[in-house]
C-alpha cells in the first residue's frame, strides 16, 4: 500500500495514466483547492486592477490592501438567507448552479499544469474540454427557465444563442492547432499533454507557427473564449444595464456565489486551453534563444525569486504603513503574508522542488496573463448589442477560423512535401 503510494513519486506520467487512485484523489483535491483559491485571488485581483484603472483604491478595509475581502464576501454570501422564488421550478432552480459549477470544474481534469501535473491525460483531451465546457450552457438555460421571470429568461436565451454560436468558431480555431501537432511526426494528437509535447518537439509555440496563421487562430480563440464565458464586452447574458443581472437575477446567497465561482472557473479553464494549445502550456519561455543547461537553471530559479519579490513588496508596504493602533492588525497581517510568501519562495528555490514546480509556475503565469486581459477588456470596452454579437460570431469569426483551418492544412502539406523532397 505504502509502496503503491510512494511508487508514484518516481513516475513521470500523470496519476490517471499511472492508474494510481490515491494520487488521483490527491490531485483532484489539489486542483479543486487550487482553482478555488485562484477564484478567490481573481476576485481580489479584478477589483484591484479595475480600481487602479478607474482612479480609485478598491477594497482596502478587510485585511491589508483588502486581501481578505473575497473571504469576507464569500462568508457573507454563505450566511445569507436562501431565497427561492415561489413560482420557480424548485428542482431545476436548485440544479442549475450545481450543473454550471460541475461542468466548469470538470474541464480541469485534463488541464496539464506540467508533464506530470494533471489529473489525467486523455487521448481526446481537447474534445473532452470543449464538450464539458459547452455543457455549462445547459445550467445557464436551466437557471433562466426555472426562475420563471422575464429578465432571467431573456438572459438565458441570449446566453444560449451566444455560447452556441461562438463555440463553432472556437472549435475551428482549435482544429487548426490540433492539425499543427501532426507536423513532422505525421500523427496528430488531441491529448492536452501531447499537444504541449508537440510544441516542445517543434521548438515553437503554435501561436508562432506559420506566422501569422497561428496568431490569427489564437485571436479567434481568444475572442470566442471571452464570448463563451460571458465576459465584457460580450457580457450580454448578464448585461447589468439592460437585464439587471441576466440569468442570475433571481439567485442570491450561496447559489449566486456558485454561479460566480463557475464563471471564474470557466474563465480559467478556457484560458488554460488557450495556453495549452498556442502558448506552449507549461513550457518556459525562450527555449531556443536562451537554451542550454545554465539558462535552464536560471529559469528554474524564477518562480522562487518571484515569490521572494512579492514577499519583499509586502515588507516594503509594511514599513510604509502608519504606526497607529487601528492599522496594527493590518500591518501584522501584511507582515505574516509576506513571511508566508517568502517561505514559499525559499522552498521553491530548493533543488529538486524547483524542477517540479516551475512547470506549474509558467503555466499559471501564462493563464494569469489571459485573466489580466479579461479584466483589462472589462474596464475598456462598451458592450456589444445582441445582433452585432451574432454578426461577429457568424460573419467574421467563423469565416476567419475556417480560413485559418484551410491555410494551416495547405501550409502544413506544403511543408511536409518539401521535407520529403529534401530528404
Amino acid at each position, binding site marked *: 500500500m505504502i509502496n503503491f503510494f510512494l511508487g508514484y513519486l518516481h513516475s513521470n506520467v500523470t496519476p490517471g495514466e499511472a492508474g494510481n487512485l490515491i494520487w488521483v484523489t490527491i490531485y483532484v483535491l489539489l486542483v479543486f483547492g487550487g482553482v478555488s483559491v485562484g477564484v478567490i485571488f481573481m476576485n481580489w485581483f479584478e477589483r484591484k486592477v479595475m480600481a487602479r484603472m478607474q482612479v480609485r483604491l478598491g477594497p482596502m478595509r478587510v485585511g491589508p490592501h483588502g486581501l481578505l475581502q473575497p473571504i469576507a464576501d464569500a462568508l457573507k454570501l454563505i450566511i445569507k438567507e436562501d431565497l427561492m422564488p415561489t413560482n420557480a421550478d424548485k428542482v431545476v432552480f436548485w440544479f442549475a448552479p450545481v450543473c454550471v459549477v460541475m461542468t466548469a470544474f470538470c474541464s480541469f481534469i485534463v488541464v496539464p499544469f506540467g508533464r506530470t501535473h494533471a489529473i489525467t491525460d486523455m487521448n481526446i483531451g481537447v474534445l473532452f474540454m470543449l464538450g464539458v465546457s459547452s455543457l455549462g450552457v445547459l445550467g445557464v438555460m436551466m437557471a433562466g427557465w426555472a426562475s420563471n421571470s422575464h429578465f432571467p429568461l431573456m438572459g438565458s*436565451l441570449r446566453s444560449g444563442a451566444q455560447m452556441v454560436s461562438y463555440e463553432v468558431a472556437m472549435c475551428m480555431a482549435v482544429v487548426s492547432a490540433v492539425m499543427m501537432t501532426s507536423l513532422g511526426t505525421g500523427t496528430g494528437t488531441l491529448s492536452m499533454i501531447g499537444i504541449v509535447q508537440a510544441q516542445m518537439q517543434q521548438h515553437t509555440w503554435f501561436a508562432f507557427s506559420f506566422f501569422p496563421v497561428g496568431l490569427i487562430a489564437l485571436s479567434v480563440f481568444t475572442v470566442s473564449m471571452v464570448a463563451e464565458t460571458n465576459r465584457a464586452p460580450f457580457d450580454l447574458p448578464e448585461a447589468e444595464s*439592460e437585464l439587471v443581472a441576466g440569468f442570475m437575477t433571481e439567485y442570491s446567497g450561496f447559489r449566486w456565489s456558485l454561479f460566480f465561482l463557475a464563471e471564474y472557473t470557466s474563465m480559467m479553464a478556457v484560458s488554460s486551453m488557450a495556453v495549452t494549445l498556442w502558448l506552449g502550456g507549461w513550457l518556459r519561455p525562450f527555449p531556443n534563444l536562451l537554451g542550454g543547461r545554465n539558462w535552464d537553471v536560471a529559469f528554474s530559479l524564477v518562480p522562487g525569486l518571484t515569490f521572494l519579490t512579492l514577499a519583499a513588496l509586502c515588507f516594503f508596504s509594511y514599513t510604509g504603513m502608519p504606526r497607529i493602533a487601528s492599522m496594527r492588525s493590518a500591518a501584522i497581517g501584511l507582515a505574516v503574508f509576506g513571511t508566508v510568501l517568502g517561505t514559499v519562495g525559499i522552498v521553491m528555490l530548493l533543488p529538486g522542488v524547483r524542477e517540479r514546480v516551475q512547470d506549474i509556475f509558467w503555466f499559471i503565469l501564462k493563464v494569469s496573463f489571459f485573466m489580466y486581459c479579461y479584466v483589462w477588456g472589462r474596464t*475598456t470596452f*462598451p458592450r*456589444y448589442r*445582441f445582433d*452585432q454579437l451574432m454578426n461577429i460570431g457568424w460573419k467574421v469569426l467563423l469565416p476567419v477560423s475556417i480560413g485559418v483551418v484551410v491555410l494551416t492544412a495547405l501550409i502544413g502539406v506544403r511543408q511536409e512535401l518539401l521535407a520529403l523532397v529534401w530528404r
Partner: protein
Amino acid sequence: MSDDQFYESLDEVEPGRTFLDSNELVLNMGPQHPSTHGVLRVILKLDGEKVNGIECVIGYLHRGIEKIAENRTWAGFAPFVDRLDYTAAVSNNLGYCLAVEKLLGVEVPKRAQYLRVILTELCRLASHQVWLGTHVLDIGAVTPLFYVFRDREDILNVFEKYCGARLTTHAFRIGGCRWDAYAGFAQEVLHICDDLPPKIDEYRDLITGNRIWLQRTKNVGHISAEDCIAYAITGPVLRGSGINWDVRKAQPYSSYEDFDFDIPIGTAGDTFDRYVVRIEEMRQSIRIIRQAVEGLAEGPIIARVPKVLKPPAGEVYVSIEAPKGELGYFLVSDGSAQPYRVRVRPPSFINLQALEKMAKGSLVADVVAIIGTLDIVLGEVDR
C-alpha cells in the same frame, strides 16, 4: 392605453396562461432598474429582442413641487426648484430667478449677471459630465464614469466654496446673487478651464474612436428634425438633429449676448451625433466661462428688491437653455406675496416623449442607450 388594458390584451385567450405562452413578452423595465436613470418605468412589448411596443410610466418621483409653490413666498420657493433637475440645480435656480425678476421688472446688476453665467456654465459642464458617465455606463463601459466624477469634483468644490452646497445649491437670489465671488474664485474657475479640455480629450480618446461605441450609437435612436419640432424637443437632442436653436443665442438672457461662442450642431440625429454635440458644448461652455471671468466687472451683486416680494398681478413665461434643453417657467401672480401658479416646462419631460418614436423597432439594448442619450432626470420629469 392604461395599464389594465395593456395587461388584459395579454391574457385575453385564457386566464391561466403565463407570459411564456404568448409570442410577445411584456417586460417591465423599472421603476427599479439600473439604467432607467431613477424611477422611470418602461413597459416593453418584446418579440425576442425586438421592441414592438414601448410605454413610459412616470410619476414615481412626483413630489408636487408646482403645488408647493402656491403655499410659499416668491423667494421661499426658490430652493425647491433645485430639486427639479438635481444634476443642474444652478440652471433651475437661474430660470426661476429670471422669471420672477421679469415679473417684478427688476434689472440685475452686470456683475451678478456675469457671476450667474459663470456658475450656470460650470453647472452645464457638471451636468454633461454626469450624462456622459451614466450614458456610457448604460452602453457597458464602466471606466469613464469614474473619470467624469473625478473631474466633476473640481466644479462641485467651486460650488461648495461659493454657496456651501454641492448639489442643491440655491446659488442665486431674486434680483441677483446672495454672495459675491470668494477670494480666489477667478483663479479656481480659470484653473478648471485650463484643466478640463485635456480631460475632455481623454474622454474622447477613450470613447469616440471605439468601434463598439460607434456601432452602438451610430444610427441608433434616430429622430428627424421635423419630428423633433413636432415633439417640441429642445436642447442637445434637437441640435443633434441639425436644428440651430439655442435659447442663449435666440433670446439672450443674463448677458449671453456679450459672449462669443458657437452652437454645435449634428447632422444625422442619432445617438452618436447627440454625443458629439454635448462634448462640443462642454468646450463651448469653457469658452464662455473664460470670457465671463475676464469680463467680470466690479459693482453691486444684487439689485434693490423689497424684503417681501409682491409682484404686480400678471403672468410671465421665461425660458433658459438648461443643460438638458429649454427650461421654462410660467408664473402667474395675483399681486400677493405667494405665487398664484407656477408651471415648469421641464426639458426632460418633453424630450422623454420621443422615447417611443425613437425606440420602436429597435432592440432592448438600444432602449437603454436612447434613455441615456435623451439625458432625462426623473426629478424634473415628475416634479
